[in-house]
């Protein structure tokens, strides 16, 4: 399933986000980078239908995003926030089960099949053993995995993740990125995420999008677009690319 951005404009006070001519394709992992305040999270929330966008701005597999109701949209696209906003201490499984919301009518409770799907999502992220744990006990890295499992339980073709690796130690960071790669490569999902860690971005991304001041500065495959000049321009900060044994590192 593809996600196309035609001519998206979103204004909030003095800030203006203006993005056009961008497409996210099936089986591809796209990483959006840029300095703080570039509008990355705002852009993601527009993609996820959480902020009001103009008609015809975003096209989700041939349908205008604006024309889709909440449940319809949530069956096609799952959004993984940086943190959850739960006020009550649900068990991990109950938490992941909430991913089934869009598939259930208002007056229904999850069926055995829904529970099976949630358990499968937990096992995909390697957290089956956590099912009955209260989720307030989890570390932030573990919570991130559970949030991803909840998005998987939504069974969507599109996954949008907001900085899924911030506050994570190197191991958890690598685990989250491996998972994202696996979802694109094995499950043919369209994966879009924002990242601050440029090394991680360069290493994992099929496509990269560079943002600054609410605009896309450049986009494409990292090997095609990534230059010291571009990075320095995007971050207003001198940066160096360093290549070693076929891998690219970004140095300050």
């Amino acid at each position, binding site marked *: 399933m593809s996600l196309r951005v035609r001519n998206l404009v979103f204004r909030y006070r003095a800030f203006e986000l203006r993005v056009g001519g961008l497409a996210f394709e099936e089986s591809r992992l796209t990483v959006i980078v840029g300095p703080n305040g570039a509008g990355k999270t705002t852009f993601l929330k527009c993609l996820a239908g959480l902020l009001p966008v103009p008609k015809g701005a975003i096209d989700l597999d041939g349908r205008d995003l604006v024309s889709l109701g909440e*449940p319809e949209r949530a069956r096609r696209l799952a959004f993984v926030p940086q943190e959850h906003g739960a*006020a009550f*201490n649900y068990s991990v499984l*109950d938490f992941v089960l*909430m991913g089934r*919301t869009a598939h259930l009518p208002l*007056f229904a409770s*999850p069926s055995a099949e829904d529970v099976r799907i949630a358990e499968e999502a937990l096992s995909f992220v390697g957290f089956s053993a956590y099912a009955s744990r209260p989720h307030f006990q989890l570390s932030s890295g573990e919570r991130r995995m559970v949030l991803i499992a909840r998005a998987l339980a939504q069974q969507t073709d599109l996954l949008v993740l907001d900085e899924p690796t911030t506050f994570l130690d190197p191991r958890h960071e690598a685990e989250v990125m491996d998972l994202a790669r696996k979802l694109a490569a094995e499950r043919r999902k369209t994966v879009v995420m924002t990242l601050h860690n440029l090394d991680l971005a360069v290493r994992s991304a099929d496509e990269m999008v560079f943002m600054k001041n609410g605009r896309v500065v450049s986009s494409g495959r990292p090997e095609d677009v990534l230059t010291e000049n571009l990075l320095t321009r995007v971050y207003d900060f001198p940066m160096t690319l360093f290549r070693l044994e076929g891998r690219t590192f970004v140095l300050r």
Partner: protein
Amino acid sequence: MAARRKRFLTAFLLVLPFAVFLASLHVGTSQISPGLLFKTLLSPLFPSWKAAIPPSTFDIVFAIRLPRLLLALAVGAALAVSGASLQSLFKNPLVNEYILGISSGAAFGASLSFVVFGSRVPPQISSFAFAVLAVVLVLAISRRSDSPVVSVLLTGVIVSAFFSALLSLVEYFASPYSLQALFFWLMGNLWKSGWADLAVSLPLIAAGLAVLLFMRWRFNVLSMSDEEARSLGVRLRREKLVVLVTTTIITAAATSVAGIIGWIGLIVPHLVRMIIGVDNRRVLPLSAALGATVLIVADDIARSLAAFEVPVGIFTSLIGIPLFIVLLRKAGKVWR
């Protein structure tokens, strides 16, 4: 093992109100033996038994105790389920069933009936009308706002204060006699309940409870942040409205016949969460069961403690507040 214990506790709590209900048919100033009570209850089905039952016993059971207990059952369940629902909707375990101004709206409505209208408008009708009006005002005022949850709660406080001021104004001009009737109503009691009260309130409460109980799992999702709930596929505006309208109807229906009975909607859902966990698939039905049980028992105490009636609302507060202090200390396990 833990799962088995949970199932046992769930079954026990669900049966409890019915056991307490039957036992409470015995409570009252006139002694009725279990055998006679049994016969009286079933006598409408077996007309031949009627001859053996004294007419006074028949009246006590059918005209006094049965409607009162049914009302206690319905009101207790309504208040507890309303509280549990609103706590999830507002993502705040300290919210109660009166948070949107229902109690002060109802109190002002009742004061108009007792003091201004005399008996021309019954307190049930005018308190129901003003309880609903208070919530409508809260929702209308808070509609244009960036942060819906905070602003709804804040507006609730403001509208409540306004109706309390109006209530004081009416009280100031009231005669001592009407003031006494009003105070008795405000303290919350099931004293005057008869079939006429039940005929209106019971269907409203039953229908509202059915709606909330059917959507019980949805409350898990609604208790997430608004943005998260939307991203998971919740039509937030519509579903919030369903919950607000339904809880308002059942709380107003309960308050209009029973007066203001405090603390049930706050304490009962808490107790349930401590016993069985926070999953609303269990919290809502068990809140209904425990709320009904608590109010039936409190009303038993209210009508048997002294030779005269003590308003039951006093007992729910007297028991509820110390219990709440204890619960607050243990609260960390359930919410943060």
